[in-house]
């Protein structure tokens, strides 16, 4: 909202707002209210991971050694790249460059998809290593250290919840891309791109926290 908008780019004022500026601020405040609840949810999970590390250091380190550090690092790079493409989409929307904006949004969705593919491979590797303690038919590799079960279960809850947010985000992004490709979108709904961008950056921010707390500090 900080940058000036090109001619013909803007927001159609809804009747219950006095000004377009008020409408834009309300939309941004609304998404932030939701993002804060999400932040509290993920923060609690990460805090429990840190407590598990403090209370059961040997078991947590043993479990974390099975995590795929380099896949996690690669996925962090992928999400940082997707944040760049999302920021580009926002800038293109402000400039009124609709085609470039649509391409940047598709690139963002593709990078999100790549993240999920890599995450899926990581889960498959975990399954092959018997690192899924919640599967009753498959013995857990670290069964002799019960506290490791705590950390691994927490890892799955946190990363699956993040993956669910990302999957939902990709769906919403593709839907919005379909709408944003239509003529006249940028003259009526430009701030939708900015509001959605906040959500995407937040998903990135959560993973920026998850990677070090789950993968790095426990090595």
């Amino acid at each position, binding site marked *: 909202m900080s940058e000036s908008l090109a001619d013909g780019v803007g927001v159609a004022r809804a009747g219950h707002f006095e000004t377009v500026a008020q409408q834009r*601020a309300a939309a941004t*405040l609304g998404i*932030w209210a939701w993002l804060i609840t999400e*932040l509290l949810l993920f923060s*609690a999970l990460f805090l429990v991971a840190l407590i598990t590390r403090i*209370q059961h250091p040997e078991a947590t380190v043993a479990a974390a050694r099975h995590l795929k550090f380099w896949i996690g690092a690669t996925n962090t790079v992928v999400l940082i790249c997707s944040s760049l493409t999302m920021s580009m989409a926002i800038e293109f929307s402000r400039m009124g460059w609709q085609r470039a904006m649509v391409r940047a949004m598709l690139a963002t969705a593709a990078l999100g998809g790549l993240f999920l593919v890599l995450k899926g491979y990581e889960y498959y590797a975990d399954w092959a290593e018997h690192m899924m303690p919640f599967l009753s038919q498959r013995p857990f590799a670290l069964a002799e250290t019960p506290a490791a079960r705590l950390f691994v279960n927490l890892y799955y809850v946190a990363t699956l919840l993040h993956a669910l947010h990302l999957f939902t985000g990709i769906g919403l992004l593709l839907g919005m891309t379909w709408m944003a490709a239509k003529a006249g979108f940028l003259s009526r709904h430009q701030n939708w791109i900015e509001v959605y961008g906040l959500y995407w950056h*937040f998903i990135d921010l959560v993973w920026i926290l998850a990677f070090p707390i789950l993968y790095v500090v426990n090595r």
Partner: protein
Amino acid sequence: MRSPLAALSADDRALLRKRLRTPVLTFLALLALLAVNVTLGATLPFAEVWIVELLVVAVMVMLILLVSMEVIHEPPLIRLFSGLGFFWVAIMVGMTLTDYLAR
């Protein structure tokens, strides 16, 4: 294949450079900070390395929050709102870890 940039006028290219400068610099800074954390995590140079790793993460979070999410340019009410969220998290994490680390 002809680059799409070649079709842009000099003014458009200047505008593009101006508008994308901040996102690209943020992207490069985040990659550099991630490289620091990955190197520290892979080599574990000293016992208290986790303190440095968490400080690097804090800088990355601030970069995303202030620059990518543009909180720094938002009106005061939105800045207050986003700041309060992280403030509550700081209270929760700070008080809980103080308890566990002081036992």
